[in-house]
């Protein structure tokens, strides 16, 4: 699986742009080499640069998701008694073509592409969707008069109508340098540019994908590019920003930090940059660290500033943070640099003063922002490598050997000529000049005889040089030494060549196969071996290392765990050294190793297997862990009380472990205790609590009560020790170990914790249905917002920061230790989440501010940002983020009216968690929703259909997902007219989706051969409801609306997969998951237990039968605090249900569709289903 990688950008002194990947080893030339560049500034998704023509260019990476923009205009008509609705409008009316408000005249042909980098996707078409409801043909909406509210129904008094036309344009200049064409007034145009810096994409709460682009012109003026964002990668215009002096260079960090340098040597710092004002408000001046030498170059990160003064000294600014962007003082760092660049994660690179090599600052961590040492990046360039590479491939063709051998007999005569050419070679080591020579050699070798070529494969065990030596000896009929002597004398005129020869004796030379490779590639004479090895050395030495002019790390993510391959030269030398170090021959290894294993297995047989019938003498020991915890006491008033806790583990005679947890407490001066058998515990879950590290233990009984045993530890570490031990004991007593099965049910709590449960066959069918409060849940490491899976073990998750993760097949992670966690497949995972707090104010007097602690005040969460005002609160906000209402608590709105006496605003804070778990990131597209086909034909090689919604609302289809490669290969974008929020694919490739306006869509003709289908069919929503989620099982389609109502799609038949009507099933639902057996599981909003009420509870629909797909009633499971569940892996009851099904479904079919056609289709569906089910059955027996 590919690790996420990012790029370091650099420009060499010839203006060529190179990139170096964090997982790569070579500098790769930028794909578009048309232009030479002076400077570049990169972020993850794009790079901006100033070319040698002083023009600005942007390089946007190609991706799976297109950059598209929707243009819209409205066509307006008025009813006229003679001709009906017509284009003739009243003089007071709006134009026939206008924008939505009617104020702006917008004809279809007035829309032009903003630059040559765009193209139209299609022609204009009418949008037939109004507010989530399909309109009549033509897309008209009607009203009494302009401007008004429009309805889709035409009434007697509808005098005007309008319809919306839309057209998409697509940005096409990706993976090329696109010139920023300025449509500005030429008078206003900036003079040629000198420096550029991009950043600002993390300014808190700004729209996703916005970018700040700053440039400095030759006259020292600063320009800001307006409106650069994801769907407008070029921006619109340049705005002049006044500065206190002439600026030479500028640097913009990912957040709100922006520094620039002045001609006079001071730095200026931009203040007041925020969401409303990405350009900032004012400048502050920071003096240079030394009075004689002004600042020449500055670079900023999240909260760090580095600078280089005119004497090339490097400085680090102390005390920079979001409250004090100017910092406090300079610290001088070791090293002299031309420039420095601060990248993601505050990592730093520089270009060395003397050697113009790029150095990476090692050891930059959050606690040590200035790092430890500079380390040179010695990566070669792709172009260098390809030369070596080509010679190797030529060699493998065998042509040079034959050539060599033929010449060998004439070596004495040819020697002089060859050596002289070699001498030239060595002085110009690997250089384009040598290429023609190689070509010549290759062409001459083309004449060689076939018989000799054939000898090479005959000696595969010998290394190339070795075999060559041997044959050379035969051919020339002299011994090797003599041969060498001859060459030595012939090489005499060149002192360096002689030196080499005295150093390399033949034995050692044999151990340098790669060196010899390059030798043969360039010459046909043996005598060149020594000479060229000098050249090979130099190739990676100082002469050939690239000289750099500029470097940008703004898109390069390096963290502590990234293994970088930048610091070792990948020359032939190193690999030959490696081959030298293999000192033990395989034969020797085999002998002693084999003997040890053989003896050990004999010993096992002798000492154990012969005594199998002996009774185990395991002591039936009691093993106890005790400690002090706090317990949320049972009786009123409920409060935390100190208790002693003891866990006793027994090992039974059958080797089974069983455990009891005792909680000793005082009740009216009397010592009492409660105890729990751990084999009855169904889940142990961490609970959010203001000040305590607390967790809850549930048993089926306590689940019914909604009253778990709650315990708290004083430190997080102590709690995790207990959690780990208790979890392990629970798993042991239930004999559960290893990774979850493919059928596992996954769920996620509101804390982002992940739980998994092995479904029992009695869960879905059988005479004695298992109630879902009996289910045992164990925790899996990681932090996710949702998980989706299928019955073939493909599991994906989405984090709170929308990062996509794929399950690796491991288990444990998080706090789990030792046996409870797999050794492989556990990786570091991070997630970013916002926590909110409300600031409430009464209009007069001010009531003051909330000062309550954060719900996540725990040390696993570290602050990423400071508190900032959140403008996305539902109900809308004003410019300062306030919402208004008549009184608390009430519904809020975003503008002040006369009746409003209170206001509130929501403050948000970004928190970052770093944990680990069996998850690997799937970069780069961030996701909102995901769905995996529940089960399909059991062929392991077959691709698994996986659909997703990006966090921007794009519908995506993942290609190349198989059981072996669950991450898949790439995304296929599926066009939509609006952003989507939910998607689901059923067992027979029925794809349903929900758009952001709450309407449902069915995707037609999706099949394994046509993974993206052909078109969307708009399905009307239930009356007056906006939908928010859809889930499709085998044949059932359920949707959930924003009011928490669950609906079943009635009338779906194979010939009419869209169905006919929505049937209500239940209210009080937050989220749902329909499984491959059409089983219905939900997260219920509120569930009342015998002791308490729980919010966010797992519930299971009982009585779901083929004839009764909506089921009968709810069975309540674990909760509250649950956010998400997926049962789409659970096909365990497939076989039994299928037997019932076939008979009953036949009934259903004959009732549903009388015609032959639909019957035929059903038959068609059923056949593959039965096949897959019998396979499922087999898999079960293997698993059990």
């Amino acid at each position, binding site marked *: 699986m590919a690790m996420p990688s990012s790029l370091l950008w650099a420009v060499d002194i010839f203006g060529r742009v190179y990139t170096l990947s964090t997982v790569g080893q070579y500098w790769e030339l930028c794909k578009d080499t048309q232009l030479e560049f002076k400077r570049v500034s990169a972020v993850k998704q794009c790079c901006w640069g100033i070319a040698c023509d002083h023009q600005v260019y942007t390089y946007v990476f190609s991706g799976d998701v297109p950059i598209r923009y929707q243009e819209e205009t409205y066509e307006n008509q008025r009813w006229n008694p003679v001709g009906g609705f017509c284009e003739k409008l009243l003089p007071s009316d709006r134009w026939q073509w206008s924008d939505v408000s009617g104020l702006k005249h917008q004809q279809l042909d007035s829309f032009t592409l903003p630059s040559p980098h765009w193209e139209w996707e299609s022609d204009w078409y009418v949008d037939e969707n109004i507010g989530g409801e399909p309109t009549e043909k033509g897309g008209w909406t009607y009203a009494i008069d302009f401007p008004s509210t429009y309805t889709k129904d035409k009434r007697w008094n509808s005098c005007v109508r309008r319809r919306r036309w839309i057209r998409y344009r697509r940005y096409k200049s990706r993976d090329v340098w696109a010139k920023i064409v300025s449509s500005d007034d030429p008078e206003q145009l900036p003079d040629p540019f000198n420096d550029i810096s991009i950043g600002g994409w993390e300014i808190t709460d700004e729209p996703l994908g916005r970018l700040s682009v700053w440039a400095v012109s030759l006259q020292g003026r600063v320009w800001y590019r307006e409106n650069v964002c994801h769907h407008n990668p070029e921006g619109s215009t340049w705005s002049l920003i006044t500065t206190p002096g002439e600026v030479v260079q500028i640097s913009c960090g990912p957040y709100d930090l922006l520094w620039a340098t002045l001609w006079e040597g001071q730095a200026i710092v931009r203040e007041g940059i925020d969401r409303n004002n990405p350009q900032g408000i004012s400048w502050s001046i920071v003096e240079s660290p030394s009075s004689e030498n002004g600042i020449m170059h500055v670079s900023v990160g999240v909260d760090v500033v580095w600078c280089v003064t005119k004497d090339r000294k490097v400085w680090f600014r102390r005390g920079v943070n979001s409250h004090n962007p100017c910092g406090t003082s300079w610290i001088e760092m070791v090293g002299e640099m031309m420039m420095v660049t601060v990248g993601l994660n505050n990592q730093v690179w520089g270009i060395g003063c003397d050697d113009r090599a790029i150095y990476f600052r090692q050891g930059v961590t959050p606690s040590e922002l200035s790092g430890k040492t500079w380390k040179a990046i010695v990566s070669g360039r792709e172009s260098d490598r390809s030369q070596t590479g080509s010679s190797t491939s030529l060699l493998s063709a065998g042509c040079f050997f034959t050539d060599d051998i033929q010449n060998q007999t004439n070596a004495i005569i040819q020697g002089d000529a060859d050596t002289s050419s070699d001498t030239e070679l060595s002085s110009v080591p690997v250089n384009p000049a040598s290429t023609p020579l190689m070509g010549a050699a290759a062409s001459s070798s083309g004449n060689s005889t076939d018989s000799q070529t054939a000898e090479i494969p005959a000696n595969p065990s010998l290394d190339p040089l070795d075999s060559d030596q041997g044959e050379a000896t035969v051919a020339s009929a002299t011994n090797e030494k003599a041969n060498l002597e001859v060459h030595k004398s012939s090489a005499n005129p060149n002192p360096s060549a002689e030196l080499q020869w005295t150093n390399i004796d033949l034995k050692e030379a044999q151990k340098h196969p790669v060196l010899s490779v390059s030798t043969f590639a360039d010459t046909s004479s043996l005598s060149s071996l020594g000479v060229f090895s000098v050249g090979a050395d130099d190739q990676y030495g100082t002469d050939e290392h690239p000289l750099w002019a500029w470097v940008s790390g703004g898109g390069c993510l390096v963290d502590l765990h990234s293994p970088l391959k930048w610091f070792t030269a990948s020359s032939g030398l190193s690999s030959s050294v490696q081959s030298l170090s293999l*000192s*033990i021959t395989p034969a*020797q290894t085999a*002998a*002693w190793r084999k*003997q*040890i294993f053989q*003896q*050990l297995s*004999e*010993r096992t047989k*002798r*000492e154990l297997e*012969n*005594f199998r019938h*002996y009774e185990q003498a395991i002591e039936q020991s009691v*093993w106890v862990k005790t400690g002090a915890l706090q317990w949320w006491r049972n009786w009123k008033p409920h409060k935390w009380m100190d208790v002693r806790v003891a866990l006793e583990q027994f090992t039974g005679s059958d080797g089974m472990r069983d455990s009891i947890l005792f909680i000793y407490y005082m009740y009216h001066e009397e010592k009492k205790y409660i105890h729990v058998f751990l084999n009855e515990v169904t889940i142990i879950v961490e609970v959010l609590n203001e000040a305590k590290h607390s967790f809850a233990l549930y048993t089926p009984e306590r689940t019914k009560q909604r009253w778990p045993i709650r315990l708290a530890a004083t430190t997080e570490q102590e709690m995790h020790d207990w959690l780990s031990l208790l979890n392990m004991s629970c798993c042991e007593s239930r004999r559960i170990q290893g990774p979850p099965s493919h059928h596992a049910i996954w769920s996620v709590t509101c804390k982002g914790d992940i739980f998994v449960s092995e479904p029992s066959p009695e869960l879905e069918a059988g005479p004695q249905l298992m109630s879902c409060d009996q289910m045992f849940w164990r925790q899996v490491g990681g932090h996710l917002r949702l998980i989706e899976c299928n019955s073939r073990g493909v599991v994906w998750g989405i984090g709170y920061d929308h990062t996509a993760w794929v399950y690796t097949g491991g288990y444990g992670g998080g706090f789990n*230790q*030792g*046996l409870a966690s797999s050794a492989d497949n556990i990786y570091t995972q991070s997630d970013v989440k916002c926590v909110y707090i409300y600031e409430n104010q009464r209009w007069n007097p001010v009531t003051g501010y909330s000062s309550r602690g954060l719900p996540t005040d725990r040390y696993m969460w570290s602050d990423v940002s400071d508190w900032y005002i959140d403008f996305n609160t539902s109900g809308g906000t004003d410019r300062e983020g306030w919402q208004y209402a008549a009184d608390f608590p009430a519904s809020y709105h975003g503008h002040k009216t006369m009746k409003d006496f209170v206001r509130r605003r929501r403050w948000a804070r970004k928190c970052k968690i770093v944990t680990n778990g069996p998850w690997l990131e799937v970069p780069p597209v961030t996701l909102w929703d995901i769905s995996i086909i529940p089960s399909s034909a059991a062929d392991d090689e077959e691709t698994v259909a996986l659909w997703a919604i990006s966090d921007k609302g794009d519908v995506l289809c993942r290609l190349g997902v198989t059981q072996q490669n669950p991450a898949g290969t790439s995304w296929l974008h599926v066009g939509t007219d609006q952003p989507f929020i939910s998607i689901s694919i059923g067992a027979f490739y029925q794809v349903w989706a929900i758009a952001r306006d709450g309407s449902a869509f069915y995707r037609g003709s999706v099949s394994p051969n046509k993974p993206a289908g052909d078109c969307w069919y708009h399905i009307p929503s239930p009356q007056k409801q906006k939908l928010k989620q859809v889930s499709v099982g085998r044949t059932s389609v359920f949707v959930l609306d924003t009011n928490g109502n669950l609906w079943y799609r009635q009338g779906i038949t194979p010939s009419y997969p869209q169905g006919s009507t929505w049937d209500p099933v239940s209210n009080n639902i937050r989220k749902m998951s329909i499984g491959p057996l059409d089983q219905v599981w939900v997260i219920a909003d509120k569930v009342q237990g015998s002791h308490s009420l729980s919010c966010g509870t797992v519930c299971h629909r009982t009585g779901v039968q083929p004839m009764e797909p909506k089921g009968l009633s709810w069975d309540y499971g674990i909760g509250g605090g649950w956010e998400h569940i997926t049962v789409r892996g659970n096909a365990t009851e497939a076989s039994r249900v299928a037997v019932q099904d076939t008979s009953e479904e036949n009934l259903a079919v004959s009732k549903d569709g009388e015609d032959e056609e639909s019957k035929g289709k059903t038959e068609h569906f059923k056949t593959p289903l039965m096949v897959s089910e019998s396979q499922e059955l087999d898999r079960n027996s293997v698993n059990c």
Partner: protein
Amino acid sequence: HYPIGLLFDLHASNTALPWSITVHFKNFPEKDLLHCHSKDVIEAHFMACIKEADALKHKSQVINEMQKKDHKQLWMGLQNDKFEQFWAINRKLMEYPPEDNGFRYIPFRIYQATTERPFIQKLFRPIASGGELHTLGDLLKDVCPGAIVPEDGEQKTQVMIHGIEPMLETPIQWLSEHMSYPDNFLHISIIPRPTD
């Protein structure tokens, strides 16, 4: 104070199985053996052995960098017979810097069934000055020449580790990494070869 496996190698290697053990519940031989009065004493003894072994292998650097809970996990893993738990920590004790090719010294003890001497323990490096790996044979030649068979002579002794006889060509570094006891020592028994 010998590990039970070592006692078996030394005294019962060639006896018929099962091994009959006499357990004494009184008259502790206070003069001959150190009396461990509690579990804590055994734990302390075990940890002392691990520390001694690491002093030889890494100048104590690895064990000293570990936290108290890691030490505890080693002991708990052994006590509860949980290999994974034990090895998760012990793995670190078996590592060495790649440039070194091996430990500084090999922690080993050689026991001879025939002598009264408790055991032989000396400083022995896994890599010869020339860079080649020392073998089990090299070790015995160096510290216990009596165990090595004379060129022409008949083999009178057996060299046992964990109930098997590894070849004398086996690199000692490999044995130390893979055949050490939980106390991180390589316990090698030299016993007379049965005559039959």
